[in-house]
């Protein structure tokens, strides 16, 4: 009978933990704040709540005696949250960099079936046909705001000495009007017909010698860097040059890879797609740049997030065991005190709440510390990867408030699980044995 009761209780606790985790994962921060407020009200207004508050206060006040053990919980959870937030910040930074280049009212047109710009080929005739679509906005002189661009990669030495690939985009003069977020910050634009490059800030950071005035060896020809641009997104990792010269160097003639077009409005996208589909000469795919870049970044972002969550989970399991260890020891060291409380009339619930609050307070401290360390060390940290297997893309780690909240949630969840079982043990201690022992 005793074994049955113990088994049932253990199963009950396990079910409670699972239920809590399910609810906790979906809870937004407003929900957690509401929970905290409800708890505070309970502790202020009800009798059991006030009992819980006083026991918690005693526990917290004597924390200094258990500094070593408590620091285990705090540091363990800080480690979990720090690593988790850092890895997720890498995924978030990459996603943000690629996606922020996208706009709802700018369309990108590629050859039908192409999975990326690099694989698409559009002929001059196709480009002329696309540019005649009425949904494309026109500038003051009536020219369509459409930029036909050629995308290739170039081998340039990186700052660490190895050779790397950088995206070289051949553009026409309309490119600057179609993409106003690209701002020249140093030097000047390239002149048509000359081997001149305007490099992005990200590319400049990654590769050697991309300062205005320097020469860069591409293949067996020398090109001159004449300017630097910034855009705050993935475009910064590229080098821009005159499309005709790039086409000649790479022997692509007059064909281009893609067409970027500024539409009359975001709602014109469907009409634009219909116009293109209706033209029998064209087999092209059109999408907003927002949608295109989002699909480009999806795979790597997912992989990075999965890696972060797997690593975080394993570390969290280790932290849970560490918290269990510490709190069991805490409860054992305070057994006589807790037994006295129960003997003088405190019911089980205040004791459970007090132990759990103490654990979750330590977990909260750990979560805040971990998040702070991750933010200090990693926010804005520049990294780079190979985008599309072909060219370098540099991005910054991004520790967003959303991520910090996610880290805090993990910390509190670890605190909950790590505190529940010791708390139940504390509340069910046989009073007479505990008073007699130690």
């Amino acid at each position, binding site marked *: 009978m005793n074994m049955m009761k113990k088994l049932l209780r253990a199963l009950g606790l396990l079910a409670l933990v699972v239920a809590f985790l399910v609810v906790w994962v979906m809870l937004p921060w407003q929900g957690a704040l509401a929970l905290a407020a409800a708890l505070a009200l309970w502790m202020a207004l009800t009798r059991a709540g006030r009992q819980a508050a006083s026991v918690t206060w005693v526990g917290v006040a004597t924390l200094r005696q258990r500094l*070593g053990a408590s620091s285990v919980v705090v540091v363990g959870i800080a480690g979990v949250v*720090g690593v988790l937030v850092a890895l997720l910040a890498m995924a978030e930074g990459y996603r943000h960099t690629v996606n922020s280049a996208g706009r709802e009212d700018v369309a990108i047109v590629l050859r039908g079936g192409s999975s990326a710009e690099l694989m698409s080929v559009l002929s001059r005739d196709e480009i002329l046909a696309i540019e005649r679509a009425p949904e494309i906005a026109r500038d003051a002189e009536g020219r369509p705001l459409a930029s036909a661009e050629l995308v290739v990669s170039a081998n340039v030495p990186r700052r660490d000495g190895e050779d790397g690939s950088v995206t070289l985009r051949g553009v026409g003069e309309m490119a600057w009007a179609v993409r106003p977020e690209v701002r020249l910050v140093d030097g000047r634009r390239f002149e048509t017909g000359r081997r001149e490059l305007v490099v992005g800030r990200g590319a400049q950071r990654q590769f050697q010698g991309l300062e205005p005035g320097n020469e860069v060896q591409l293949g067996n020809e020398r090109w001159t860097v004449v300017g630097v641009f910034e855009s705050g997104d993935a475009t910064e990792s590229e080098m821009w040059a005159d499309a005709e010269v790039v086409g000649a160097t790479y022997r692509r003639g007059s064909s281009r890879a893609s067409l970027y077009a500024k539409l009359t409005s975001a709602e014109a996208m469907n009409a634009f797609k219909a116009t293109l589909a209706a033209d029998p000469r064209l087999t092209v795919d059109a999408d907003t740049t927002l949608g295109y870049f989002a699909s480009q970044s999806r795979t790597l972002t997912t992989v990075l997030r999965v890696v972060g969550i797997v690593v975080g989970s394993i570390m969290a399991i280790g932290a849970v*065991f560490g918290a269990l260890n510490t709190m069991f020891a805490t409860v054992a060291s305070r057994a006589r005190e807790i037994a006295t409380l129960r003997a003088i009339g405190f019911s089980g619930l205040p004791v459970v709440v007090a132990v759990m609050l103490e654990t979750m307070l330590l977990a909260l401290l750990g979560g805040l510390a971990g998040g702070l360390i991750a933010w200090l060390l990693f926010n804005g940290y520049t990294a780079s990867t190979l985008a599309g297997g072909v060219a370098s893309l540099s991005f910054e780690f991004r520790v967003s408030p959303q991520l910090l909240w996610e880290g805090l949630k993990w910390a509190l969840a670890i605190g909950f699980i790590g505190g529940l079982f010791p708390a139940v043990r504390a509340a069910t201690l046989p009073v007479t044995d505990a008073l007699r022992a130690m």
Partner: protein
Amino acid sequence: MKYFHLIWAALFRRKARTFLTLASIMAAFLLFGMLDGIRTTFAQIGQNADGAQRLQTTSRLSMVQMLPLALRSRIEQVDNIEAVTWANWFGGAYQDPRNQLFTIAVAPNYLDLYPEIVVDPAELEKWKATRNGMLVGEDMMARFNWEVGQTLPLQSTIFPNSDGSLNWQFQIVGVIRQREDSDNGFFGAMMLMHYDYFAESTPYVNDEVGWYISRVSDVNRSDAAAKAIDALTANSPHETRTMTEQAAMAAQIKQVADIGLIVGSIMGAVFFTLLLLTGNTMAQAVRERTSELAVLKTIGFASHSVLAMVLAESVLLVVLGGVLGLALAAVLGPVAGAVSRGAVNLPPIGPGSWALGLGLMVAIGLLVGALPAIRAMRLNIVDALAGR
């Protein structure tokens, strides 16, 4: 060693505490096993005996630029080069543009330079005789349930066919398998078509190839051969860059991510928290047993014996948990692969990872046990027995 029983008993005095600490150590070394397996896999890519003999020649301008086919005979004549083959990227998609395939158009002698790829000799002859024949890796055959002998329609995203469309028809004539002892996992997904069929059918490619692979006879002089190949095209419109296959792959990987740095940082954080956790456990354990240690010293154990016993206890704790964690990581890889039917591919834990892991376990055990052991060594017998 004769005191092993004593150390073991001391360790498991407080079963709950020891088991929980062991669980934490297991989690830490499970993570270590998985991450180190990944790190060593990336570090070893391209480093096999077969690859050491191969040089990769690509355009110096860019990896998407093509080289003239005429270079072939000139590369063959370079000193130390005994065989040359060439290939071009094709890609292609099957049924859905999102099913991108790893298809390359290769010269007839391509497989001669890749002894780690195994094809049935009869199938190989059939492939050489069939203009639009395709050799498919066994993983691809399994993934799409293809059969040898069937026609395979593919859609290229880059190259139009001679009729202007993007549709290409192939005949699957054989299966590519990996040689037993080779551990490069990429060949199972590879598909080989004929370069001649590719070049004749697509209008924009005129006697141009994507890259050359050449085999050197003397591995120690491969650098000289690479430089000699590049010298052939210096100052021409098609300058080349030749590297050993291993160097080429390592450079690729390095651009993707600095795996070593990421893994090292994560494990640093993990081991730091582990040090604190285990240190706390050991400190508690020794603190509780001061009278026992005093008794040991009273009956004649020297101070340094007590030091050694506490250190041994802490090392044993960490090694026990660590070995269990690494073993779990070693088992988890194949299990995860089997359960996900090949989608999740965790690398195996090699002897290098085990050696590094054991070294770390001993180091952490010693570090963690140092302070408690010194305290135990310096125990004043009278004070300890009196409970002060």
